[in-house]
């Protein structure tokens, strides 16, 4: 990476997010590999070897009904999934779906494929292939899937979602535990990521649907200062979830993943204009400094 491109990377992107994402991707991959190794009598010392079901917070969500009515967890779900669900909810209450934007390895995998798609189709075309009206309607599909998964799990007591779960398939494709349906959905998701940013998250992820609801009342939100905004649409163009940040003063969209890529810290060229904040002023607002030099 040349010095110039390295500078661009650090200036226009939330680089720490990339590092956190890579960390969690590697961490979950190692746990999953270790789980396989342990069943064959090997295993990596000092590393967890839990089943992927045990470290997926969505397992906690689908277990709520059974836990409340019967007092037990759904098959293959344990206390850890419930705890991660609570941690996920706490983070979402504070910061919105940061689990999606910073932690979820499936989201990370889609972003990695997306970087290739962006190179192929260039920024203006990439992530804008689906007509806006259709795209807008499709965004609610994930709530239908959420309802179906929760209902089916409640009446069957088994993790039926695992049969189409691309997250489980991503970290278990080498085992006999993975269902063909899961592999197919994973393949379609990764392929679609070449054209659309985070297609699974936008249209299908039931856990993202749950966390998205927190955007309506989260404590820290993306806020735009209309008075200093140049309306150059940089925030809209960069948003992976296609949210029109430039038309809002506060982003309450259920699809926002709190990636901060639209903020003045990353893509917005005007300082203190798009920020992640509570809205409570703790100091006097400084005069906006327009950071245009070398930004484009």
């Amino acid at each position, binding site marked *: 990476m040349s010095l110039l491109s390295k500078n661009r990377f650090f200036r226009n992107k939330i680089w720490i997010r990339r590092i956190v994402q890579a960390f969690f991707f590697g961490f979950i991959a190692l746990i999953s590999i270790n789980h396989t190794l342990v069943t064959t*009598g090997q295993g990596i010392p000092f590393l967890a070897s839990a089943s992927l079901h045990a470290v997926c917070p969505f397992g906690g969500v689908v277990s709520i009904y059974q836990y409340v009515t019967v007092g037990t967890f759904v098959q293959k779900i344990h*206390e850890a999934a419930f705890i991660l669900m609570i941690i996920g909810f706490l983070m979402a209450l504070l910061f919105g779906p940061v689990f999606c934007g910073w932690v979820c390895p499936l989201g990370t995998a889609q972003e990695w494929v997306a970087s290739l798609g962006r190179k192929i189709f260039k920024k203006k075309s990439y992530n804008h292939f689906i007509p806006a009206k259709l795209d807008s309607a499709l965004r609610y599909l994930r709530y239908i899937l959420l309802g179906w998964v929760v209902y089916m799990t409640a009446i069957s007591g088994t993790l039926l979602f695992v049969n189409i779960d691309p997250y489980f398939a991503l970290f278990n494709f080498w085992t006999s535990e993975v*269902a063909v349906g899961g592999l197919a959905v994973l393949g379609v998701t990764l392929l679609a990521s070449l054209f659309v940013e985070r297609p699974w998250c936008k249209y299908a992820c039931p856990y993202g649907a749950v966390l998205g609801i927190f955007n309506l009342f989260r404590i820290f939100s993306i806020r735009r200062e209309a008075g200093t905004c140049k309306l150059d649409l940089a925030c809209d163009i960069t948003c992976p979830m296609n949210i029109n940040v430039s038309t809002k003063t506060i982003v309450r969209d259920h699809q926002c993943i709190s990636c901060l890529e639209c903020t003045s810290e990353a893509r917005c060229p005007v300082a203190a204009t798009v920020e992640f904040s509570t809205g409570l002023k703790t100091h006097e607002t400084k005069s906006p400094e327009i950071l245009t030099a070398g930004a484009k």
Partner: protein
Amino acid sequence: MKLTSFPLAIAILVLMFGGIGFTTAMNWWKTESTKIPAKYSEGEAAGEFNPADIRGSYTFEAIKDSFGIPLEDLRIAFRVPAGGNTAAFSVKSLETLYTDLPVEMGTASVRLFTAFYKGLPYDLAANADTYLFPEAAEILKTKGSMKPDQAAFLTAHTLTADLQIPVDAAPAIEATLQPGAESAVPAPTVHVAAAMTVTGQTSFQNLLDWGVPSEAITALLREPMPEPAMLIKDYFAGKGVEFSSMKGKIQVEVDKHK
């Protein structure tokens, strides 16, 4: 109050790993079910581990730890190849290991073997279609602590040398195995062919032939019935669900249409 990416990253890591660390310290963090079976609450075996609570996720080592059965006996009894990691062998693996047998060899067989090995009470009538390999029977005869009714049951529920169901025992309900029917001397068993009994060899076509409507099967599966010729056991194996955990529900549906 505003937050930039670096403090947010720190907050995420602290909440994630702090939460996990705190719940681990409180002993709330569990990533697997405890491999300790429930105990009998009453009767002569009160306080002892109950083999009926052995789950498909248990490893042979967990069974050894709870019931004191040597790993080598478990390995030989269930024909697990030598040289592998017997301790880590999970009970549910048996269901996929023996798909060609005329009977189901899975979790129920391990429960039966364990109960007979330790001479613990076990519901034989509910296990009329559970069988063991000849090797398992040999081990039980030499090392087990079977009661007379259990010994009689074993005789009728040991596969033959060519792994077939004993001639007089094809899925059978033992008339001698009524609750409380124990005698000092093994009584000759009277086998009554159990028609319409769900086993590992039952296909969806069998269910239809037995009068179970396809709508009832669909309702049971929560999805459309697959090809009728498919074995029910294979269907559930493909779904990652233990056949033994579903067999009872299907049998209830079959019994409704007898």
